[in-house]
Every structure is written in structure tokens, then in C-alpha cells.
């Protein structure tokens, strides 16, 4: 069995989430790791007998790579993807795909022209609870949607800065936006509001500490999103959907479906990242492409998140064109 040789650009927290999965695949070899923090690259490489690099171009000079994982912070996207696309390599990239819509659109076009297999880390699509919701909603589509990301402030300081992370809607709640698109339909109109509370423990933090958005969907459904990073714990992360005689509550680990006969809860049974990575590797190996979120698909979600930020800035509703 020939092994699919994977290179990593960026070896931070989320990369380790994928590594814990990929190292279980017998048909994958982790071949190289690039990180501006060379020590971090070496630490990852020495787990797998791989090579370490301090920049992505040196990694991409390895002619034996089959695909690349790009796990870099929101503000860093652009050059790495361009170089990977120029090499004609399939890639998996973590969300959010960029802070600059222009860059994301340029990359989406380049991916399409190169005909590359891509995957983006909107892993909620791979939850078995989301499968359950999809089946239930096929019969009774959602008319009202209510999404939440009510959580603590992530420790990395880049997250605190609007010009580094894009704020909570773009960095975290984007998962819920993607899920709403996946379970309901395209978003056609957004209106966002935000507020900011200065806190001593977070000097220089300039992202909204509370934000909300109203959404209109192509299907006729309406909804809202609520985000805050003011808590010292994870309070609620999920999406609630309501249709004709059905209420669904999806959290990151279970689903409750109420059709008027109690409130039965189903717990998630499988690791969505495992299925997500498996689908990507299968597609790279030329087997069936079952990837649930390609770069192009992720771009649609990202447009909604950025439109909410725009609405917050401009104080008006934004109509989404082309949806």
C-alpha cells in the first residue's frame, strides 16, 4: 500500500488535533512540518520521523508530498495557499480561510482553475448529531434558527485583535453560520450589532465582547446569532432550529429533538474530525470525493461572517448577492 505523504504548514493547537487523527491512518505518512517557530516544527517532526522547516516554501520543495494541511492563524492566510496551489497540491485548510475577502476569492478562483481537491475545517458537518438533524429537517424544514457561541476569551493574544482574528463572529461563530447554511439554506440578508466591554485582564483586546446578528435565509427561514466571550466558561455553543411541530437543539456534543413527546437527547458517538480527515485523504488518494466542505463552500460561509462584520461597522442590513 502506497502511503499518502502529508506536509503541515503551521503546527499549533489545531494542527495537533488533526495529527492525533492522521497518525492513526495506516495509509498516511506525515512527511514534513513547517512553522516560523522552528522548535515547534522539530517537536512535531520528531514524533513521526519527519522533516522540519522554518518556512512553507522549503516544505513545498519536497517533491514527494501528496497533500498539505494549512493550520495557520486567521491573519496569516494567503502566501501559503498560493504556494501550495502553484505546486498543484491538494490542501486542507483551517477556518477562517482569511480575514480579507479579496484574498479568499482570489484563492477560490485559483483552486478552481487548478482543479484541486480541497477541504476546510468546518467539522460540525461531520457530527453524527448533525446527520440526525438533517434527516429530521428534510421532512419538516426549519423556519426559525437561533445560534449561540457563548464562551470564554481564548488565550492567544492574536484572537483579541480585530485585525488578527476578525472577531468572534469570524473566528468562532463561523462554525454555527456554516451549520445553519448546511441545515437550512443560503443566507440572503444579515444585520449585525455589537458591543465592547473593556476588561483589565485583557489589555488591548479590541474585538466586540458581545455581538448579535439577524439572518434571512433563501428558504424563507429567519434567525439570529448570539456571541459573547465575556464568560469564564463555555456556556452554550450550538444551534437551535424550529419547524412545523419540531424543535431541535444541537450542541457541540449532543442533539435534542422535541416533537411533542418529551425531550429525548442523543449524544454524539463519533469524532467528526476523524471523518473529516478520512474524507480528505480518500479524495486525495483518488477515491470517492465525499468532502463536505470544500474551499468554495467555505468561502460562502465566510462571506456571511464578513457581511455581519460589515453590517456592524456600517449600521445597516447587508444583502448577500449571489448567495
Amino acid at each position, binding site marked *: 500500500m502506497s502511503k499518502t505523504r502529508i506536509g503541515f504548514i503551521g503546527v499549533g493547537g489545531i494542527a495537533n488535533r488533526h495529527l492525533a487523527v492522521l497518525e492513526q491512518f495506516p495509509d498516511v505518512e506525515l512527511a514534513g512540518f513547517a512553522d516560523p517557530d522552528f522548535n515547534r516544527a522539530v517537536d512535531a517532526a520528531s514524533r513521526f*520521523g519527519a522533516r*522540519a522547516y522554518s518556512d512553507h516554501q522549503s516544505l513545498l520543495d519536497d517533491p514527494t508530498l501528496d497533500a498539505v494541511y494549512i493550520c495557520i492563524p486567521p491573519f496569516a492566510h494567503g502566501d501559503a495557499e498560493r504556494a501550495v496551489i502553484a505546486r498543484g497540491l491538494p490542501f486542507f485548510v483551517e477556518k477562517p480561510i482569511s480575514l480579507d475577502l479579496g484574498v479568499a476569492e482570489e484563492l477560490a478562483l485559483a483552486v478552481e482553475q487548478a482543479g484541486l481537491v480541497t477541504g476546510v475545517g468546518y467539522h460540525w458537518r461531520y457530527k453524527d448529531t448533525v446527520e440526525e438533524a438533517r434527516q429530521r429537517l428534510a421532512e419538516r424544514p426549519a423556519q426559525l434558527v437561533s445560534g449561540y457561541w457563548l464562551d470564554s476569551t481564548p488565550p492567544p493574544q492574536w484572537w483579541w485583535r480585530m485585525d488578527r482574528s476578525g472577531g468572534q463572529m469570524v473566528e468562532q461563530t463561523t462554525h454555527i453560520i456554516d451549520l445553519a447554511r448546511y441545515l437550512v439554506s443560503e443566507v440572503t440578508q444579515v444585520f449585525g450589532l455589537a458591543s465592547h466591554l473593556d476588561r483589565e485582564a485583557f489589555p488591548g483586546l479590541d474585538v466586540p465582547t458581545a455581538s448579535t446578528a439577524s439572518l434571512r435565509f433563501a428558504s424563507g427561514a429567519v434567525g439570529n446569532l448570539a456571541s459573547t466571550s465575556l464568560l469564564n466558561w463555555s456556556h452554550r455553543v450550538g444551534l437551535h432550529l424550529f419547524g412545523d411541530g419540531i424543535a431541535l437543539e444541537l450542541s457541540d456534543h449532543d442533539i435534542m429533538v422535541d416533537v411533542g413527546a418529551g425531550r429525548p437527547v442523543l449524544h454524539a458517538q463519533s469524532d467528526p474530525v476523524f471523518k473529516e480527515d478520512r474524507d480528505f485523504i480518500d479524495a486525495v488518494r483518488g477515491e470517492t470525493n465525499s468532502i463536505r466542505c470544500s474551499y468554495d463552500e467555505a468561502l460562502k460561509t465566510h462571506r456571511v461572517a464578513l457581511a455581519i462584520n460589515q453590517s456592524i461597522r456600517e449600521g445597516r442590513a447587508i444583502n448577500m448577492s449571489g448567495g
Partner: protein
Amino acid sequence: MKQRIILVTDSEEPSGVGEHMLTLGSGLADTYDVVLAAPDHEAGTSLLHRAAASGLGVKALDLLNPRQVRGWLADQAPTLLHVHAGIGWEGHDLVRYGKAAGLAIVRTEHLPYLLTSPIQQAAYRAMLLSVDGRIAVSQAVYDSHKDRSSARLVLIHNGVTHRPPTVSREQMRQALAVAPDDRLLLTVARLSPQKGHAVLVDAAPAILARFANAKFVLVGTGPERDKISASISQAGLQQNVVMLGHRTDVPDLLAAADLFILPSLFEGLPLALLEAMASKLPVVATTAGGSIEAIGSDHPYLATQGDAASLGDAIIAALDQPDQAKAEGDKAFRRYNERFSTARMAAETANFYQSILHKQGARGTNS
């Protein structure tokens, strides 16, 4: 895709062995997909970081978790595992794990056979049953190992890579406060009794009587430091003999020097002497076995071990005939190039790998 080769050690402190693995790995990197594997302790991790920086693949081994090590090795098959042993009792488990995983096993012995306990000797013999080929890094190591096993043994001399200086001779001499017409005599050696610094200090007065501008520069650390320092003071040589301690800029010091001196009482195959030869610096050595192996028995500036008068004569002769000394430096460089270069070591090692892998392949198709 290139054939993978794994260079591995389980040494507690892979200093010299680690240097050798880095040099060999870099030399082999054009031909093979080289992965350097070392224990995940501090010294091993530091070696892995250097290996990664030179572009080699790296693997940290948790030796307390044999299942994990065996699992990783099994994943690498078919390939060749090259185990580096600083001393006889090292690398036994790695040899066995590798063999069980179906890998071809080559073992390099870096020291002569020194095992005296019958239990260790028996364990060593048992381990050798899993080895497909052995490499000795010097004649002395070869001689002491050749009758220990029927497993193939070849002599592949240690190689060193010439590192060019990064500052000019004048800059370095200025930094050392050595005048342009001073004679700078450099010794790079661990400060241990084996290296014979005491003999050099004893020889110094006679040399200074002839060449008042001679400056002795001693590089290295070790247990004899205080003793050597005291003997320098006692002889009133502080103006002409300086101790620099550990230095990372040996190529710059070599470039600044007029003569390299290695006064050793005995030697394996001295890398510092090979580095001096690689830099074309004229050398004075003793007739210690490993030094002779490096510089050749026909070298004109050889002293008897432990004999200060003989050492003094050899140094005075070299300083007296700068043109001939320079010619000898060039000759030593050619000898280094032919016998002790990294490229030569890597090429001979690659040939040995191919013969082992070929044999394995032949065995594979027959079975």
C-alpha cells in the same frame, strides 16, 4: 522516491557519536532519505534539533515505551536501520527491535571492544546474531572487533567535514592579542591526562628559548584544567601559554594558527587532528596509534608519546622550516581528502548499505 535509512542511537550522552551521525547523515542525504532517531532525553532532543536544522528527518524515541519504538520501526519496513554504539553495551534493544520489524541492521562500533564481564560479553554475542553488517571507525576498533563475530565487518574511517573560517586570520589574531609575527601554536583537545598537555607545558621552555614569539593556545575543557593552569603558572609561562576553554569557533582559530599540536599519550581516531588536516594547517602529533592512523607514519613532525624533549624537537623542526611545514600541511590535506573526508565516508557507507540490502533482497526473493 529515495530509499530510507535510519541512523539511530540509544546513547545516554550522544556527543561524539552524535557528531558522527550528523556528519554521516548529511553526507548520505543526497542519496538516501535519512532519518536520525535518538532518545527523547535532553541530549537526544538537542541532537534531533541539529539534525532537523541540517535537513534530515528526525524521530524522538521513548525508550521506556518499547511497544511504541517497535511499532514505529515496523512502520518503516523495508529499510535499513543503522545503529551507532558508543560502547559495547549500547544499542542491543534497537538491534533486536529492528530485526524483529524486518529491517536490515548495520551496527557501527565507535570504540574498541572493552567488555570484560562474561554476562555482558554473552549479551553482546547474542545481539550480534541479529546484525547484518558491522562498521569499525578506525583500524584499532576494527582489529579489536574482527574476531568477535562472523557478521561482516568493514573498516570505514571516521570522516570530518571541513568548516571554513568565518573571520579573517588577522581579525582572529587581533581578538587573541597575538601579534602578526608571533608564532601561534594551537592545541584543541579535552583537558584530560590522555591528551598529554603536561608534556607540552614541559616542552614549552625549550621552544621559547628558540622562538621567543611562540604563543601556545589551548582550547578545550576537562578535569585537568586546574592542574594544567597551575603548571603553566609554576613555569612562569602565563605570557606565552593561554587557555581558552570550550570554543565553538575552532575553524577561525585554525585559520589564525601557524601550527597544530596534539601531544596525546593514546588516541582512537582524533577528530581535532583530522579537522586541522582538513584546514591545511601543519601539524605536530605523537606516535599514538590513532594519531599515526590519521596523519601517517611517514609524517616528519612526530614525537614519542610522553617525551617532552622529543615533542619540543618536532615543534622546533616545524617552526624552523616554514616552507616544508606548509608543504606537509598540503600533503596532510590530500590525505584527509582521500581517507577522512565526509564524502569518502558517506560513499563507502552507501556501498556497504547497498551490499547489505542487495543480500537482503536476494534472500527475500529466495524465500
